[in-house]
Structures are given as structure tokens and as C-alpha cells.
């Protein structure tokens, strides 16, 4: 493929707003115009993003899972033209209001599902002794994690990803939710850190072949 004249980036924020941004390689310093198709009619962008007093992007209202056809020109020539499903560039909104239900050594984390399907709700958790987050995923925002220690304080966070077979590989994961600290259902705020002392670890025993 020859080097494209323009580098164009599309982000579909939760099927609410679509942001198309461009960075001209050869046409820097030129005010490019953005025209898109909507209801069979061509419409100019009415909400430009301006950078160093030149057009650098356009914000569009997204209405549904649809195809966006648009072009970019310098007034005389069309420099770039594309049609794309806006779902291919989806960035879901991040989960809010996580709720926790503890039962024995397990916790079920829930939040409200987004209104569209084929998403992956990822919950990450770790205790203060864990160096990495552990992930558990679900097709809905109702994910149960087992084997937790009631005597430990845990961090939790959540995000939403898209299923590649339903959206493709150019989407974006949502931002992480804010981190919650919990120990068997009590919110622990900063108390999680007071118990910290260096975790000693040693590999044990032998493998039987």
C-alpha cells in the first residue's frame, strides 16, 4: 500500500459520539473540510476540532450501529474517502457503580450492562501480596471470583472489551473503572496498605514424572 496522504483515526465513543481526527502528512497548514453522508445526503462537519488554528478533526453524533461514509478535501480535490462501520472503532464506556456480593471464599461483582451485545466484561483483582492483577471475564457484568481469602484485603477494577469476532480488531478497551478496596464486603479505603510487609516467597518441592 502507498503511504496514505492523510493519517485518519476514528473513535466511536460508546455509540454516542464519533470522533474522526486527521493529521495531514503533505497538507499541513491547510484547512481540510470534512463531508459525510447522513440519510442519503452529504453534510459538512458542523463540529470541527481545531488544532493550531487548522481543522484537525470532526465530532459527530452517533445514532446507531451504522456505516459512516466520509471524505476529506482541500476545497479543490478530495484527498481521502472512506466508508466504515462505526462499530469497528468502538470504545465502550467504562463500568460504573460496581457492586460486590461476598459468599464464603467468593465474591460476585456486578454492574449495569451496556445496551449493546458481544462485549467482554473484565474484572481484575489482586491482594496486597500479589504482584500482578488476576483477570476474570464474563459476557455480562456479573462475574464471580473464587478462592479469595477472607483475611486479606483486595483491590478490584473493571473494564469492557469487545468480542473480536463481532467488532474486529481495531476497537479500544474501555478505560478502567476506579479501583475499589474490599475485604469480605467492607470497604477498606486506605486500610489495605497498612498491612503491607514484604511477601516472602519460595518455590517448593519437586515434580513427580
Amino acid at each position, binding site marked *: *500500500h502507498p503511504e496514505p496522504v492523510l493519517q485518519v483515526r476514528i473513535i466511536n465513543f460508546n455509540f454516542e459520539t464519533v470522533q474522526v481526527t486527521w493529521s495531514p502528512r503533505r497538507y499541513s497548514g491547510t484547512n481540510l473540510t470534512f463531508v459525510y453522508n447522513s440519510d442519503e445526503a452529504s453534510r459538512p462537519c458542523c463540529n470541527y476540532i481545531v488544532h493550531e488554528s487548522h481543522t484537525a478533526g470532526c465530532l459527530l453524533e452517533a445514532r446507531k*450501529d*451504522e*456505516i459512516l*461514509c466520509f471524505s476529506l478535501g482541500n476545497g479543490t480535490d478530495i484527498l481521502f*474517502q*472512506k*466508508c*466504515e*462501520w462505526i*462499530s*469497528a472503532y468502538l470504545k465502550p464506556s467504562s463500568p460504573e457503580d460496581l457492586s460486590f456480593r461476598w459468599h464464603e471464599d467468593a465474591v460476585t461483582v456486578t454492574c449495569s450492562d451496556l445496551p*449493546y*451485545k*458481544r462485549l467482554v466484561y473484565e474484572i481484575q483483582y489482586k491482594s496486597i501480596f500479589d504482584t500482578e492483577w488476576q483477570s476474570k471475564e464474563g459476557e455480562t457484568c456479573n462475574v464471580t471470583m473464587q478462592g479469595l481469602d477472607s483475611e486479606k484485603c483486595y483491590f478490584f477494577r473493571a473494564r469492557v472489551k469487545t*468480542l473480536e*469476532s*463481532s*467488532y*474486529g*480488531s*481495531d476497537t479500544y478497551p474501555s478505560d478502567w473503572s476506579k479501583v475499589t478496596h474490599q475485604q469480605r464486603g467492607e470497604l477498606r479505603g486506605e486500610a489495605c496498605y497498612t498491612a503491607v510487609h514484604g511477601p516472602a516467597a519460595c518455590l517448593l518441592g519437586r515434580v513427580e514424572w
Partner: protein
Amino acid sequence: YNFTDCDFEKIRKKYQEVIYQALNKYMNGVKTTEFNNYIYCEDPPDCLAKIDLITFYPTHGCTTLAKEIFAIRTNATLTLQCPGYSGTQINNTQAKKKRKKRQVTTNKCREQVSHLMELWRRFSRISKQ
């Protein structure tokens, strides 16, 4: 053929578990977003009708899709899950020869398969469960 009476949920599962992998393998790393994707489908029957059309009916510049593994799986799926769908009679040995002879996947065929992938994705997003 009217795809209204098909079992969309079973088709979606077969697409997600075995057809999608074959489509991906065919594209060999080329992304659908590298093509212009302008073919829309409104609802599951409409999507399946367009998938059937592009998969099994040759177009100018790309005549061999019906022999590909994703097409044979699509054919088997529609035959199983769409009452009365007769499906395309694929001559097995010829299919293998065609796949062997077609060393270079034409760009026109990749563009067609890009449309197919976008239609399948749309189908999986909007089918009920």
C-alpha cells in the same frame, strides 16, 4: 431463499466458533478496515442473504470463494440451520484443487471477504441472545 426461519442463535455460535477462524485465516493478517466497507445489512435475515450472495455467487474479479473452507462451513451451517435451504453442491475434490491452484489470493477476493467479515460481525452483534 428467505432466511427468516433460520435458527440465528445456532448460526451465530457456529460463526463465532469455527467460521470466523477460517475467515481470519483467509485474510492472513489483512484487516477489513484496509478496505472500503459500504455493504449494510439491516437485520439477521438480510445479513444472511447478503452473506449467501457474496460467498456463493462469483463476482467479476473473484470467482473462487465458494471453494474456500469458510464457504464450505457457511454452506454446512446454513444447510443445518435454515429449513429448506438447499445449499451449494460443492464438488469436494474440485474444491481442493481450486484452493491449491489459487496460490495468490487476489485483492479483489480479499475485498469481498472483508465485506463478508463485516456482514458476519454485524449479524453476530444484532442476533437476539
